[in-house]
């Protein structure tokens, strides 16, 4: 599951102190429809606002199209657990996306 973990090295308290932001090292577009399907497929409730997803993981989490992640909890341990789970799903999405593009290439 290396790829997503490598992309997100920073988890910082957000400006108003109510949550944690995970910021990618470089901004990549996230395939939100596929991430939505992957999350929903694993039983996570997801709100799809087209330019962002809101996933009801261990803590409610917003994922923007540009890869920014906001985990709505001030509890750092909970934020880390939530992020780890989300990155696992993101890796699955990235891996299946790569496989699809290599098949079509």
């Amino acid at each position, binding site marked *: 599951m290396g790829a997503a973990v490598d992309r997100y090295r920073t988890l910082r308290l957000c400006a*108003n*102190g*109510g*949550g944690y932001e995970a910021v990618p090292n470089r901004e990549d577009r996230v395939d939100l429809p596929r991430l939505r399907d992957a999350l929903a497929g694993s039983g996570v409730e997801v709100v*799809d606002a087209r330019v962002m997803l*809101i996933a009801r993981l261990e803590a*409610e989490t917003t994922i923007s199209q540009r890869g920014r992640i*906001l985990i*709505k909890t001030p509890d750092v341990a909970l934020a880390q657990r939530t992020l780890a789970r989300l990155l696992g799903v993101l890796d699955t999405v990235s891996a299946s996306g790569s496989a699809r593009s290599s098949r079509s290439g």
Partner: protein
Amino acid sequence: MARGVMLMSGGIDSPVALHYLLRQGHEVVAVHLDNRPFTDDSPLGKVVDHLTLLRTRYHQPIPMYVLPHGPTQVTLMRNTDRHVGCVLCRRFMWRSAERIAEREGATFLATGEALGQVASQTLTNMRTATAAVHLPIVRPLIGFDKHEIETVAKEIGTYEISTRPGVCCQAVPDRPATRSNLIQILGEEQRLDVDQMVDDCVRRAVVL
């Protein structure tokens, strides 16, 4: 004295604006547009605590309506230009507040806006946003700067509540428009069933 509807966000400004209206003897009904899931629970909790404090101070009941605004935000994000999202959001807040004003027999709307503080509070955006409603809008803090507002908030005891930890609104676009154009805004709204959206929001209001 008049009866008005005040938009309450949980931030520093709106309880200060409410304080001035109450001090002048106006009757006020509070309306909070609940932005979850684009925020967390904190704004709602802050508004509840602001009102508890100001009810005691001014011996007024101050009814509070909580309206679900998250579904409106989802519809706006899916169907309209993100750049003008804050102005569209404000137009829906005003419309919903005006509906509550009709229900409550209120004759004005009020807000804690101060000129130039955030993207939605430029003069152009305020004008575009409020073109959606008919009632007069009272802005007790319009010429205040942030320091003045914070000083009053500390004096009346609302500052500590407003500055508790919370999550910023996630629906705010990266580069919000500061000079909106009413023609463009009306064009964006043509893609929406505006009346139905406001109906859905107001129908699900909860009074606390």
